[in-house]
């Protein structure tokens, strides 16, 4: 059995919703301290006929492995058009279920990244629009920020080493 399912390979080969949104309604970043993956996610919020807030458009950029890229592509295609409430209730387990074949255990953490970035983007949108933030979302925001800060610390010193080695 190959390590990755057809679904993963398909999304990795042709990832959907890659890129940026100019003037996004919300922007979220997440990093994975375990392996150094990092991701940015952009949202455009609109309204449906019932007047509910929905995710009108969603785009992402990922520095990451096959699973990180494939899962983000899958998540964005599942979440597009959904209400914010639906998006917030989305869990990594929902993603893993959709992948057709169990992920190797050491790859599970790569699926968290996309879900985290989505939460951060919604958090950012809530802040901008002064919408009340639930305790749960606030907690998640704290956790994700901490991970991200640690990663950013690591990314520093990037340039200096490269300059030296390129001499």
């Amino acid at each position, binding site marked *: 059995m190959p390590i990755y399912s057809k679904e993963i*390979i398909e999304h*990795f*080969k042709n*990832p959907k919703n*890659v890129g940026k949104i100019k003037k996004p309604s919300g922007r979220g*970043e997440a990093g994975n301290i*375990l*392996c*150094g*993956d*990092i*991701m*940015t996610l952009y949202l455009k919020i609109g309204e449906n006929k019932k007047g509910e807030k929905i995710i009108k458009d969603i785009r992402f*950029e*990922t*520095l*990451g*492995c*096959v699973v*990180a*890229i494939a899962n983000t592509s899958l998540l964005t295609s599942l979440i597009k058009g959904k209400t914010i409430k639906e998006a917030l209730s989305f869990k990594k387990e929902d993603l893993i279920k959709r992948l057709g074949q169990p992920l*190797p255990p*050491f790859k599970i*953490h*790569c699926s968290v990244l996309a879900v985290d970035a989505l939460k951060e983007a919604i958090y950012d949108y809530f802040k901008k629009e002064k919408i009340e933030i639930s305790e749960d979302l606030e907690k998640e925001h704290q956790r994700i920020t901490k991970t991200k800060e640690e990663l950013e610390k*690591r*990314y520093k*010193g*990037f340039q200096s*080493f*490269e300059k*030296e*080695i*390129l001499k």
Partner: protein
Amino acid sequence: MPKKIKKIYLDYAATTPVDPRVVKAMLPYFSEKFGNTMSLHSFGQEAKEALEESRGVIADLMGAKPQEIIFTGSASESNNLALKGVALAKASANQGGHIIISPIEHACVMESARWLESQGFEITRLKVDKYGLVSPDDVKKAIKKDTILVSIMHANNEIGTIEPIEEIGKICREKGIYFHTDAAQSFGKIPIDVNKMNIDLMTVSSHKMYGPKGAAALFIRKGTKIEPLIHGGGHESGLRSSTVNVAAIVGFAEAARICEREMKKEAKREIKLRDKLIKGVLEKIEGSYLNGHPRERLPNNINFSFPGIEGESLIMQLDFLGIAASTGSACSSEKLEPSHVLLAIGLKPEQAHGSLRLSLGKWTKEKDINYVLEVLPKVVKRLREISPFKR
């Protein structure tokens, strides 16, 4: 590459295909000359003869005596035997318990050392410079009264850096300390002389030089104190009991014969291809750099870092295009740790993240290199477009 495979294999450092001439030499030893080397009858003696002839061939290629070669099942086994075997022999004679290694050894040396540490031995892990070179001076300084063994690899498997083992061997010889070198990546590719280089123990492997898997050897200089790890019927001078895998060893020897004849010319050819690929990639891919030493390097090794992308994604994209390569990215390892070699030369985890190893071999053609130069920049560009770190 043998005919059937149309893909471009650039992972010769992981393992090599078996040379068809080697397969031919091995074939009689499965069903025809299948005897047990310990049997007294003609079947056994026939096998024994092939074993001893093979021992002579392997010894020849490194300037050793046949009786100084012990056949094992893998380079990992040889390295385990070298470290643990010497440590146990020296400890039981109360002759010290300090071992010096480099920080870029293969996992089988790193882990053997770690295990010995847990058993009460003291391990010094030296530093390497940004190219992965061990300084002989550091070795000299690290040697203590109770040092029993220095183990520094000949050439690194990931970044290809060739260590100054002749100088290190000289220091060890002067101090009367055993010197072991893991030459799994270099044997059959570049010249090695155990006497000139003052080597007391050396690990070599068949499947890295177009021989079959399941055969390797440890050179043990005459008079070196060492204990076996596998006890039993007393094969291999009592240092490695196990029924001898004659077919694989015959293949190993045939591979060594071929390397002896073709090594010089092949190294020259590979260096040309290697340098063409390095130059081309550094020119075409912005921000890319070479890991490892620019000159003191195995003829067939290339290791790049491409900031802004991740290695496993890169390997998969290349695989879609028929190119087989490898990476030191944490995402590709079950332990989720980036390559210890790349970290030791000073890379940050995120730089090891975007690393790519391409290792060439005798079936690598110039048109393969041209193909890589054509598609690799596109693949990196595509992954960078997905990445938040744009260049």
